[in-house]
């Protein structure tokens, strides 16, 4: 029996995913904006509110990295000082969205048959509304403001995530390990606590990260349409809204705040996807 051996342990199905440079970059971007939100004065080069009419609508240069606006305010410093509010809107909306998704999704998966069916139908109906449309409907009722943006984007994107939550819970409930636990005679509550919920919630870490990025994009879309925070603020959406007027002769006023949003959203996506990949390959 020298040669008969069990197949040598396939040391992990995949090799441990290395930290790729894209992910490292993404973490760097997020860290930068986190710092900007916490202590903008450390990163800003100018006073974001200082008017200088002699230097209005200057293109990006060494002195004004992102250029200046119509009143000569330094765009880079305004972006930095607008980070806190922009992130707050994004995180707030993602939070609203996720809480709603958790409530609706778990009700649709775990509630009593008829209730679950009704909730599921309700989620499907909400899902028929395009996110932005739903948000616009709410803005129409509540009027534009930061709170409205958070609610509108949060509620608007909740149905999609609710479906994910429901799918995760159902997948966990139908899994072989839950059946094995039933066969062991574990009570229902214990199985729910120790298998279903942890396994269903785990992928949501990645979903939440992706959701923050998307929320910032949706919120800024509302602002771009003039339905967000009003322009004197340096919230990024407000910068976009203000920059629209100058798109032909000072395009940086809209291109750069847009680029900042794109970069942050991409960074969040990259991190979210990395978390997803790690979870799927069985790493902690």
């Amino acid at each position, binding site marked *: 029996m020298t040669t008969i051996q069990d197949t040598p342990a396939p040391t992990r199905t995949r090799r441990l995913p290395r930290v790729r440079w*894209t992910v490292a970059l993404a973490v760097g971007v997020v860290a930068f904006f986190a710092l900007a939100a916490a202590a903008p004065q450390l990163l800003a080069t100018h006073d974001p509110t200082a008017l200088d009419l002699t230097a209005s609508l200057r293109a990006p240069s060494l002195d004004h990295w992102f250029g200046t606006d119509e009143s000569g305010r330094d765009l880079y410093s305004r972006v930095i000082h607008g980070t806190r509010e922009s992130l707050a809107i994004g995180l707030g909306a993602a939070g609203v969205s996720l809480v709603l998704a958790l409530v609706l999704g778990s009700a649709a998966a775990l509630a009593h048959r008829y209730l679950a069916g009704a909730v599921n*139908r*309700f989620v*499907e*109906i*909400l*899902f*028929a*509304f*395009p*996110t*932005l*449309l739903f948000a*616009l*409907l709410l*803005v*129409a*009722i*509540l*009027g534009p403001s930061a709170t409205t943006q958070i609610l509108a984007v949060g509620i608007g*994107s909740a149905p*999609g*995530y609710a*479906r*994910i939550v429901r*799918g995760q819970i159902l997948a966990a409930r139908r899994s072989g390990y839950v059946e094995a636990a039933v066969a062991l005679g574990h009570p229902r509550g214990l199985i729910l606590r120790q298998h279903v919920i942890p396994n269903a919630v785990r*992928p949501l870490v*990645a*979903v939440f990260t*992706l*959701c923050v*990025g*998307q929320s910032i*994009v949706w919120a*800024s*879309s509302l602002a*771009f*349409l*003039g*339905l967000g925070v009003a322009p004197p603020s340096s919230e990024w959406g407000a910068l*976009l809204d203000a920059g629209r007027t100058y*798109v*032909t002769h000072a*395009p940086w006023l*809209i*291109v750069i705040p*847009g*680029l900042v*949003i*794109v970069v942050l*959203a*991409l960074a969040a*996506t*990259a991190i*979210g*996807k990395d978390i*997803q990949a790690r979870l799927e390959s069985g790493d902690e």
Partner: protein
Amino acid sequence: MTPTLQTESPTPAVAPAVAGGGGTSRALRAARSIAAKAVGGLVVLWGAATAAFAAQLALPGDRATVILNVRAGQAMKRTPEELAGVIEQYGLDHPVILQYLTFLGGLARGDLGNSYQQYRPVWDVIGEQIGATFALTFTAIVLAWVLMVVWVTLTAGRRPQVRALGSLAETVTAGLPHYWLGIILMLVFALGLGWFPVIGGTGLHGLLLPALTLAIPLAGFMGQATRAAFETALTQPFVISARMRGMGDLAVRLRHVLRHAVLPAVTLSGWALGATVSGAVVVETIFTRPGIGKVLVTAVNAQDLPVVTGIVVVIAAAYVVANLLVDVAYTLIDPRLRTS
């Protein structure tokens, strides 16, 4: 956009169909499933209508006052005489349930109510604009499919570097906000190179940039789902079988793999229509195109709720129709029984 994909993979029928005699029962099953889908669609429409009605009720303040304020564009106290006219016109003194039933009855007859601001039926306001939006979204979805299929077929399952490039492009484009992409395209191709008009007309030439703005992120988004399915299909035994018959790589991709790979993107298409309509609102603003997007933004700004809710109902109807079409397309591409 919802970033995580949830696609149901169809499982093959449990038992092989018995030879012959399956024709009528299959037709019956198809009819039954279409009927079920249609009922589901009606439920969605009813839900949308109810939400729309609830939204009108939810406006803060006295509705008659709000309506007058919207009309005048300014907020002020109204005299009882002024209010009486509005209350009479909109039936605001009726019980809510009666108003609701009147609203639903109107919808059933195709009556979406009257605009607060423009003094005319909502359907007229939407009707004159909807053609342009339809042309835009339709072109965008077709463009997105073409871009996506070509890109995925060329890059999926190739050398690691090519694959990485392929999926990186999809991740980046899928995350691009419409307003930003639209402005960049406009700055480069219309203002910079002068290839296209800055203000998108209704002609084909003016349609391309706005449609591309919508198509590129959509292609990236669908591409992510398609690429995953494409690479899975490439490793399937039937693909190896085809190659062992002497089929070339490109032929295998086009004749065998692609058909399997597009299935998840097809299921996403109903949802994609919604995302495209969302985007159309932004794109019509950037390129100053006519369309319901512009109408919607104006109405939201003015709190002209009947127009807003009218558009919501129309788009929900489009979503329902699109999903029925998606189901038909799906069964054409994958004739195996779909298990629900």
